[in-house]
């Protein structure tokens, strides 16, 4: 069992309060997944005119990690405009460095650091511990943005670690959370590895995330990649995904992993259970529905 949550602000005024809406949802779904949690939020690009300027989200195993020295080392070796916003063991590095070059340097110089995400508009936080504690640790309630997806994990198939927590990311500005379990992740993984796709964990969800990103990197739309995933992925899943401007929800053909959507003129909120949505303003008048199996639901931010 795991919990998923998602929120997309249709009313731009709600963007300021994204974190305030999402934290009670995530905390409530801690009942479904108390061992680790994560949240991805999407906001405005760092620099609307410079596509090279990216946000790299980093996780350090040590909460007292020496970020100033890291920043200095980064500047010495990779240079360029650089900004670093650190909070305990999480940091957002803003830089024009090429992702491949950055990852190579990171692997060589700071192998213990985990690159959580790469993109222009996405930040990702994930860690071990109860979702309420993680929300407090990283000040989730203060986060702003257009949309976000969160996850509360009860691990059943691979280790409990920050890297195994969701959201999983692949490529840029793409993330995925999963409630369920895949029965053929190793087959999917072998197929992708032959094509040069690299994995970071042995987690089944990572296989789904990298499969979709691989299809998109080959030119497919996410919708078309999902149609292929319905054929390729075997197992149970409710998948909630986000791109720079979209929130996407699907359930497998059996649809035995739950999801509830509440949509109003102001927002779209998604959760594994209605009780995580019950606090939202106007939810009693919302259009509330359960997504059908193998249907793709998407909303644009």
């Amino acid at each position: 069992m795991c919990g998923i949550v998602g929120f997309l602000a249709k009313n731009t005024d709600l963007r300021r309060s994204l974190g305030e809406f999402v934290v009670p949802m995530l905390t409530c779904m801690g009942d479904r997944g108390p061992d680790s949690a994560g949240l991805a939020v999407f906001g405005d690009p760092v620099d609307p005119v410079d596509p090279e300027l990216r946000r790299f989200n980093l996780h350090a195993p040590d909460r007292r990690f020496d970020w100033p020295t890291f920043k200095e080392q980064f500047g010495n070796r990779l240079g360029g405009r650089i900004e670093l916003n650190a909070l305990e063991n999480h940091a957002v590095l803003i830089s024009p460095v090429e992702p491949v070059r950055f990852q190579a340097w990171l692997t060589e110089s700071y192998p213990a650091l985990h690159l959580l995400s790469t993109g222009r508009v996405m930040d990702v936080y994930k860690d071990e511990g109860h979702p309420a504690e993680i929300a407090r640790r990283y000040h989730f309630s203060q986060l702003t943005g257009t949309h976000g997806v969160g996850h509360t994990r009860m691990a059943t198939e691979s280790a409990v670690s920050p890297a195994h927590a969701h959201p999983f990311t692949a490529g840029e500005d793409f993330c995925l959370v999963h409630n369920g379990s895949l029965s053929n992740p190793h087959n999917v993984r072998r197929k992708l590895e032959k094509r040069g796709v690299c994995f970071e964990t042995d987690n089944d969800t990572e296989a789904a995330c990298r499969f979709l990103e691989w299809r998109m990197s080959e030119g497919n739309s996410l919708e078309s990649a999902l149609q292929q995933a319905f054929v390729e992925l075997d197992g149970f899943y409710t998948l909630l995904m986000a791109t720079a401007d979209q929130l996407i929800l699907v359930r497998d053909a059996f649809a035995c992993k739950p999801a509830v959507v509440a949509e109003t003129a102001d927002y779209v909120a998604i959760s594994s259970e209605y009780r995580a949505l019950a606090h939202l303003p106007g939810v009693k008048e919302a259009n509330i529905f359960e997504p059908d199996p193998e249907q793709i639901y998407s909303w644009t931010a």
Partner: protein
Amino acid sequence: MDRLIQLDLGRITVRELNNYLHHELPTNLPVHVEILNPNGMHSLAVGLNVPAEIDIRGHAGYFIAGMNQKANVTVHGNVGWSVAENIMSGTVRVKGCASECAGASGHGGLLFIENDASSRCGISLKGGEIIVGGSVGHMSAFMAQAGTLVVCGDAGANLGDSLYEATIYVGGKIHSLGADAQEEPMTAADIAHVAGLLERVGIRRDAAAFKRVASKRSLYHWHADAGQEY
């Protein structure tokens, strides 16, 4: 006149609510209980064994009114998974929609869902009646053994898969029938049965326009010559 008792889940826990309903309800006069602020909470009014009228005011969560005996429970909103699971007697009425496994394994009584029910509605039904005012999702009445499922709208894929002796009536379209389920002609007894059930819940529909689905009974016995194709 009924005695009205209001229980507010903003003030008491689900355990306190159910403990009250199990042990402290007055038994010497008709009782009407209103449960306020359910906010999607699970396991409300489960295991009742008294002829009380219970109104749940709002959307509720999983396992609402499970194992119900004698009580009449009305949910003024939607419910999550497994409403009226294992219902024995009494009535459970959902004014909104129900999620998966509504009425799963029910033995008796009546479950009435005014709008849609999701997949696996009436799975392993063992008796009693389920009436759905809207449509049902896939695999409904899977392995249902006895009792009746009436669907006024459409039925999703694999309706009545591996059906035993339960009977299904569908007013709308059937997406597909499951293994060993077949459509059969409506007899006068079927029409009377459906008409009676619809009247009981106040739905005005022509019972003769419903389709009857029951078991082919071809999976009841193992056939060695079937080449293990199933």
